[in-house]
């Protein structure tokens, strides 16, 4: 699963609409495989979204986002987890931890929709973990 996080000074950037950098994170079998920074400052909005789509990003974690951009990104089949704030490292740790709780990274006054989004992402990560544990069990059984 590929995630993109809008970053600013090692934190989630406050507003997606004007953010200049994203971190592309590859999570596989419940583990962080790779992370890479992408400078998106010179790109117009659509080019940014196309870039994320071309990179295979399926989920975008960002701060505040204006509604039209949220809708366009969703139309590109990228799930948006918006109104998230805090240090990127901690957010990644939370995502990879057992409880995978992003609630404490919610921006103040943010809508409840983040909760729904979270559940979907948590489900994806959990599925990846499940697949990993299944493959481990199969390996042990063979032995």
């Amino acid at each position, binding site marked *: 699963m590929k995630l993109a996080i809008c970053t*600013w000074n090692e934190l989630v*950037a*406050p*507003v997606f*609409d*004007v*953010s*200049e950098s994203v971190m592309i994170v590859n999570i596989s079998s419940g583990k962080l495989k790779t992370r890479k920074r992408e400078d998106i400052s010179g790109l*117009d*909005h*659509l*080019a940014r979204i*196309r*870039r994320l789509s*071309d990179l295979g990003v399926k989920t975008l974690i960002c*701060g*505040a*986002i*204006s*509604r*039209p*951009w*949220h*809708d*366009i990104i*969703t*139309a*590109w*089949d990228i799930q948006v987890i*918006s*109104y998230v*704030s805090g240090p990127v490292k901690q957010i990644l740790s939370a995502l990879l931890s057992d409880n995978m709780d992003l609630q404490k990274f919610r*921006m*103040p*006054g*943010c*809508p409840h929709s983040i909760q729904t989004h979270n559940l979907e992402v948590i489900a994806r990560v959990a599925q990846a973990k499940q697949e990993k544990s299944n493959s481990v069990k199969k390996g042990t059984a063979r032995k």
Partner: protein
Amino acid sequence: MPSKLNSELPCKGINCTILENISDGVFTVDHKWLITSFNRAAEQITGIPRKQAIGRPCWEVFHSSICESECALRHTMNTSRPVVGKTCYIVDAQGRRTPISVSTALLRNAQGKVIGGVETFRDLSVLEGLRLKLKGGYDMGELISHSPAMKKVLELTPAVAETSSTVLIQGETGTGKELVAKAIHVLHRGRDAPFVAVNCAALPDTLLESELFGYKAGAFTGAQKNKPGRFAQAKGGTLFLDEIGDMSLSLQTKLLRVLQEKCYEPLGAFQSEKTDARIIAATNKDLEQLVELNAFRQDLFYRVNVVRIDLPPLRHRKEDIPFLAGQFVERFNRLLNKKIVGVDGQVLSLFIAYDWPGNIRELENVIERAFVLCRDGEIQRSHLPRELLLKEQRTMETPNLNTAKQALEAGNISRVLKQTQNNISQAAKLLGMHRSTLYRKIKQLGL
């Protein structure tokens, strides 16, 4: 710890009463950028309760367009200089952009020691709404587009406005030809100069002539006093001739003379009158084809076609649909005093998959109609006209996010291929993708 501060009121005493009763939002931060006070107006403008704001970094609460790169408060804290009236926007929890103006200053204690910063901000959305109403709902902002198809138009419009040349705007009906004409007019002659629009297709030939040139008393039965024409009304301003392709050949001859000699004769007049009005013509027809069919004078075509702006139909700029829909929702909220949040995701997908033969006007009408049926919340499928849903059924495919994405992608690729005359390498470069990816997408999308 900032979080342990009294979060009920930002301060105590008389200053507190004043702070709580002003309409400007005010918040203060300490040296760690944590919010230490947040007044009532700040709660209202941001939609964030004081209790949740206090103790949080200001960017997590304020989320403005300048937080990341041009923070006014940071500038003040670094330079000790105040910032006054910097305009930007904040994105609220519902994803709405609110225009604001921001002022910042250092916050000092009784001993004069700097203990943080103070930011005041004013909600400009009411002012902005009023400004729009005064201007009759027109705003240069409406010309903002995120579509490559509109790039040329956006580049050409201010350049054209610097000259006095006659302009021809071509585009399907409902693509916003008058909006572009008004933009050129405002940039060239200013808001106060007259902008006079005439629809050449709406009036019969004889009426159109008297409408354009005016008449003198006694020119014909019933002409009891002088009536100035549209050319006279547009003195010092712009005359917008919409649907010029529908003008009769005899009237075309008279218009040609005005364009060549800058003068005209009102009906029944003995003397010519001069005009300095800038002419902007528009049509939804192919004038070159009309010239070939002898339905439009070639010499007039060359006169009006000095600078040409081609407006793309909405189906070629589907990227703009969410923005246009948002703009219309905002406008009708203002006009009808409603609080519709926006358009439901499924409806937006349907909008993107639809071809909009009536272009932006059709989209505007669909949203206006939805406002009648929708009381609050989001515009849903049930608020859409039957025709739109019937067309969806005819395609035998429920539009979903995937079809919306494909529609956007297909439109974009087709346009670039046309622009590069099917040169794959060039098109791939413009689209920022590899040749093989482009080949695959062309095949996938059936282009």
